[in-house]
């Protein structure tokens, strides 16, 4: 059995200029009219690649998340999967009946009643009249709009509109479902209902591609996640790691054009206090390693984590105090340690250059993403040599339920410290 979706080096270009777009559209149509292939593999003036050389496969029954910042090309990609746009380069192969929720209620006509729209929209999505008749009650039940079904949809609230649209789309019984950011409109109750419905369809072997900005939803229901950035595929794999990269993409200041997968395991500075510290110690980025000394950014709840801080100083710093704390995505400090060097026999001074390694045998941070607040002080907590926040890394629990939030406001996990270099 072949894979439901095969995307092979797919690219799509668009024009930035409307008049140029009209001209190019006309040229392409003229060429095609006379049976000539329109040139599609190179850019003309004022064109750009909206999707650039993307390849991945989706397995049967898999749920694949597709995330990226605004304008990264994920919706264009989804429209190509649905056959609304055709790729300019590469090839997409689809095996199975596709249902798409690019925009809920896109085929609705404002003047028609909900009932009439169910039939029209159902037909657009490829359902026969008998099929719709058979599922009508189920659609009505799911949409939960009661007597309003015989009212023109222009009088519907936006919530009712979306509920009806979604209800029709999930009743098409697709083998492949493409969902584009549609859940964000409904209320909590409806979202829960949709997610339950998706879970039910997944159990029946539905393959799904989900586009969303909501990393929580993507993480909780995807098997794998693809990150798209500026039209290019940046990452494919573990949802947690993917969401992490996506978060980095959204914080523009720290991640420029050159952000590549090679330094993805490093935590850059996400916040600093200019003028606060004397800058006698300088630290550019830190990285985390697991028990095998491998760099990672996603850790299990009770995994061993070593925080590596490569530093440089102008002069030798004596008896420093290191303060380290972990701040979760809501900005709450979840755990912290104050490390006084004079209590540690082996290391009383920071030499000119080296790596501070702080090992937590069990960090026990709940599932969330965290930034690390790291600062170096003199022994009296008076002068600050360095202070910044580094971000981000994530933790996850091994058990199925996602536990989030703060377990203990500030707990001091056991640690050990040593200096390298």
């Amino acid at each position: 059995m072949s894979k439901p979706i095969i995307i092979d080096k797919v690219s799509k270009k668009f024009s930035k200029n409307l008049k140029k777009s009209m001209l190019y559209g006309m040229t392409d149509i003229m060429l095609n009219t006379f049976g000539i292939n329109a040139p599609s593999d190179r850019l003309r003036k004022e064109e750009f690649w909206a999707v650039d050389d993307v390849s991945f496969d989706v397995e049967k029954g898999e749920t694949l998340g597709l995330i990226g910042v605004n304008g990264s090309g994920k919706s264009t990609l989804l429209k190509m999967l649905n056959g609304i746009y055709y790729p300019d380069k590469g090839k997409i192969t689809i095996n199975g009946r596709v249902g798409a929720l690019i925009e809920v209620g896109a085929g609705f006509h404002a003047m028609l009643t909900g009932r009439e729209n169910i039939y029209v929209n159902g037909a657009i999505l490829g359902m026969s009249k008998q099929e719709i008749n058979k599922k009508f009650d189920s659609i009505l039940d799911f949409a939960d709009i009661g007597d309003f079904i015989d009212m023109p949809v222009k009088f519907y609230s936006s919530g009712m509109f979306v509920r009806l649209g979604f209800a029709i789309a999930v009743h098409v019984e697709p083998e492949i479902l493409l969902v584009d950011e549609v859940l964000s409109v409904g209320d909590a109750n409806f979202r829960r209902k949709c997610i339950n419905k998706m879970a039910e369809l997944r159990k029946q072997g539905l393959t799904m591609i989900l586009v969303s900005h909501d990393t929580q939803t993507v993480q909780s229901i995807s098997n794998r996640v693809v990150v798209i950035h500026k039209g290019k595929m940046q990452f494919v794999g573990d949802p947690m790691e993917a969401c992490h990269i996506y978060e980095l993409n959204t914080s523009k200041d720290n991640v420029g054009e050159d952000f590549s997968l090679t330094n993805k395991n490093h935590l850059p500075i996400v916040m600093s206090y200019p003028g606060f510290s004397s800058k006698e110690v300088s630290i550019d980025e830190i990285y985390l390693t697991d028990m095998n000394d491998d760099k990672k950014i996603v850790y299990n709840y009770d995994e061993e984590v070593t925080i590596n801080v490569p530093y440089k100083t102008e002069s030798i710093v004596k008896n420093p105090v290191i303060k380290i704390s972990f701040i979760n995505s809501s900005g709450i400090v979840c755990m912290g340690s104050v490390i006084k060097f004079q209590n540690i026999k082996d290391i009383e001074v920071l030499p000119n250059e080296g790596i501070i390694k702080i090992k937590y045998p069990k960090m026990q941070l709940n599932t969330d993403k965290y930034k690390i607040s790291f600062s170096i002080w003199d022994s009296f907590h008076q002068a600050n040599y360095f202070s910044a926040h580094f971000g981000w890394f994530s933790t996850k629990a091994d058990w199925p339920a996602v536990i989030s939030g703060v377990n203990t406001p500030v707990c001091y996990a056991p640690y050990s410290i040593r200096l390298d270099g």
Partner: protein
Amino acid sequence: MGNKKRSKVEYYSNLMIKKSIPEQLYIMMFSVIEFKELIIRFLRRDITVRYKQSILGLLWVFIIPVISILFFVVLNKSGVMNLEKVNIPYPLYAIVGITCWQLFSNSLMYSINALVGAGGMIAKINFPKSTLIFAAIGRAFVEFLIRCVMIIAVAMYYQYIPSWKIIFVPLVIISLILFSTALGFLFSILNCIFRDIGNVIQLIMTFCMFVTPVLYPIKKGALQILNQYNPLNYFINGIRDLAFGLNTVPISSVMIVCGLSVLLFIILWRLFIIVEPRIAERI
């Protein structure tokens, strides 16, 4: 194209012209046969929506042709305009002419606006765009059928017995519909790119109605020479000749025009299918 009942689909650039002509013909037929239900849904939707929020409702179908015919009758009677004599009662002559003309002009105008009007849907849902064109043509045809009731009423009022040749009229009407659909295919796509097309065609149509023998016969002058190359002259006069046993245009020419229309329809339908994938990205 839609994905109904087709298990494996591939998408790549210039997809349609890389396919062979039989494959293209198959896709053309597929979009009609597999999606006939959708065409009917669109058709019903358009008709319902058009007359739903109006008091006179379907009466509007009659009002426009009746007013224009009355206008010409009054002009003729008062001597402002001197129309040439026709061998049948003038209202009957005019109503057949204008009904056929409106079948053509409405088919064209509805289909030109069909794609642009459904722009939001085209950009978000994948379905064969030709269904929109066929639904538009269907709507014009339904209105035509309703107007035919009016023709029968007028014919009965004048107690006019039609010629036996009337049995060939449906063939000419089908050709006329295919001719309008062909132009609809072409101009609807152009209208997606240049919105001017809709307005330009509207202008041309108004102009054309007066140079074509729709409401009055044209038997001499430059217009008569021009009309030798006007396919609509052959359609409209052909229908009237066959129905009333007149002899305005040679029947062989009508047959040639009908044949050419069928050919034009197939050529432009194929063109539509080929450039269809480009509609969504340019609309």
